[in-house]
């Protein structure tokens, strides 16, 4: 391949190896029933939340626009995917991936429709419009016959069977990995740079020859697509969906994950999506005080790290190694000085 430095290639390989190690580690534990189905469900939900947070990070972190209705896109994806697998007579292993793509496309289409008027303007119109969209789409799903109203859809199959406990995990895990990969590469491509330029200064970006409306739509539709796929995964992971699962609280929850992790930091989103999925479960022992503690944690993080856990920086192994090496090296130097 052209132009890849040796160092980069090694770090790509190391990351790939780590991904597979994690995958084989967890899937073996699930298959051997060391991790029971309760915990494996939490892991799956965590991965779905990671997908959602990372996709929202595309718009909120990279493009710098506030989105208050991400659950709306998830709803569109979840319902279209579920309706497809419920109504199409195909083996589930075939219909499931098609359903995910359909879910993604449906969400991308709705993103496009609301993005065109909202993103031609400068400023915070997107926040209000997506807020409205999230509520409208939920009310629609609550009242249509095809979506089965407030009762929602149920009976979706899952890839997990008695003999195959890791079916869903495998799917969700690799989609999550792919989405994370996509965010990194998109962010460092010319398109990602253009999107970041718009975040930094829209007027200057336009003066630098950037077609701002196009790039804003690109990031927004891409995020909507990913949220739709996550919705499809969610529908089949849970097995039943109803409109109340995709309300404003859900949108806020995803937004909190992005803000808490540090806007614009993908690894930050991953970290906080993981923590915020596990936290409510881990706090179950405190029963009534659960949500109180949850909020206290959020407030503390925002007080002590207002830019989020990782700010705008990314965690990388090479970076971590270099830091450790330099601190150890620094200590040695200091020690040598003292002796001298």
């Amino acid at each position, binding site marked *: *391949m*052209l*132009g*890849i430095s040796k160092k980069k290639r090694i770090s790509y390989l190391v990351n790939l190896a780590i991904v597979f190690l994690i995958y084989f580690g967890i899937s073996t534990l699930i298959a051997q029933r060391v991790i029971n189905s309760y915990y494996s469900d939490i892991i799956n939900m965590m991965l779905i939340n990671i997908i959602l947070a990372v996709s929202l990070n595309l718009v909120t972190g990279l493009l710098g626009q506030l989105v208050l209705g991400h659950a709306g896109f998830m709803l569109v994806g979840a319902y279209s995917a579920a309706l497809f697998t419920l109504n199409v007579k195909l083996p589930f292993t075939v219909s499931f991936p098609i359903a995910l793509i359909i879910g993604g496309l449906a969400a991308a289409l709705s993103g496009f429709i609301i993005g065109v008027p909202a993103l031609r303007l400068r400023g915070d119109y997107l926040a209000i419009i997506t807020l409205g969209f999230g509520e409208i789409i939920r009310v629609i799903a609550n009242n249509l016959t095809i979506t089965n109203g407030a009762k929602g859809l149920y009976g979706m199959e899952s890839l997990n069977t008695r003999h195959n406990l890791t079916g869903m995990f495998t799917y969700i895990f690799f989609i999550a990995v792919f989405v994370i990969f*996509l965010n990194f*590469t*998109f962010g460092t*491509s*010319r*398109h*990602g*740079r*253009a999107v*970041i*330029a718009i975040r*930094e*200064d829209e*007027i*200057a*970006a*336009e*003066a*630098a*020859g*950037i*077609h*701002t409306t196009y790039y804003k739509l*690109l990031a927004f539709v891409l995020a909507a697509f990913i949220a739709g796929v996550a919705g499809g995964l969610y529908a089949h992971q849970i097995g039943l969906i109803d409109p109340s699962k995709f309300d404003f609280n859900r949108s806020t929850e995803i937004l909190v994950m992005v803000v808490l992790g540090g806007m614009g930091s993908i690894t930050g989103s991953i970290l906080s999506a993981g923590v915020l999925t596990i936290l409510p479960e881990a706090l179950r022992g405190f029963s009534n005080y659960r949500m109180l503690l949850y909020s206290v944690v959020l407030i503390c993080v925002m007080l002590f790290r207002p830019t989020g856990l990782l700010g*705008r920086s990314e965690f990388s192994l090479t970076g971590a190694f270099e830091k450790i090496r330099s601190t150890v090296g620094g200590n040695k130097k200091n020690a040598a000085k003292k002796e001298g």
Partner: protein
Amino acid sequence: MPVLETKNLGIAFGGLQALQDVHFSIEKGEIFGLIGPNGAGKTTVFNLLTNVYVPTEGVISLDGVNIVGKKTYQITQNGIARTFQNIRLFKDISVIDNVKIAMNYQMKYSVLSGIFRLPSYWKEEKAVTERAYELLKVFHLEEHADDLAKNLPYGQQRKLEIARALAANPKVLLLDEPAAGMNPTETKELMETIALIRDKFKVAVLLIEHDMNFVMGICEHIVVLDYGRIIAEGSAEEVRSNPKVIAAYLGGE
């Protein structure tokens, strides 16, 4: 044929005629000055040229083609790049990425090649990085390539903004008060840089500036605006001795 020409250019904001009958023509490789007292409408001229405002009358032709009504980014792509009176850099990203962003429209690879890192991505990114470094070298910024733009000292931020405008491969470079806030040494250095840019990149430069030594020292042709109209034009000598200009600056009669 002039590279940039305006005829009968004017704009009214409601009842206020901000500019009227502005006409000038800039030849290839010329350094052209636009001066006038505060509020004369100089920056408005820039905003008309880049279609931030749409002129209510008149024609702007770039290489003989009328560009009135084109979008700002299309005008940049067609060959007019500008800097801003109050620096507008992409502050939280690296210096070199600031330059690369202006080269974006000259790159071809698709979203998918970018995401999947296909060979076209590596090829074009490599080429663009080299070009960006060369451009930074002209402004002695190559050592700061990986620093965040906001961490540069003021004078270098001004230079980076010019580098970014040049990265868009313009035929005409618009500089809005490039020497504002600079000390005499920096101003002198900037004059040399602008002359160098003209020779190296073969661009015409249209600049707004209040520093008269700067304008008189570098511009081959000067247009003086007052209350939205051209009151004088010509070489530095001609403008300097024009009684109308003296009256506009110092008050006359």
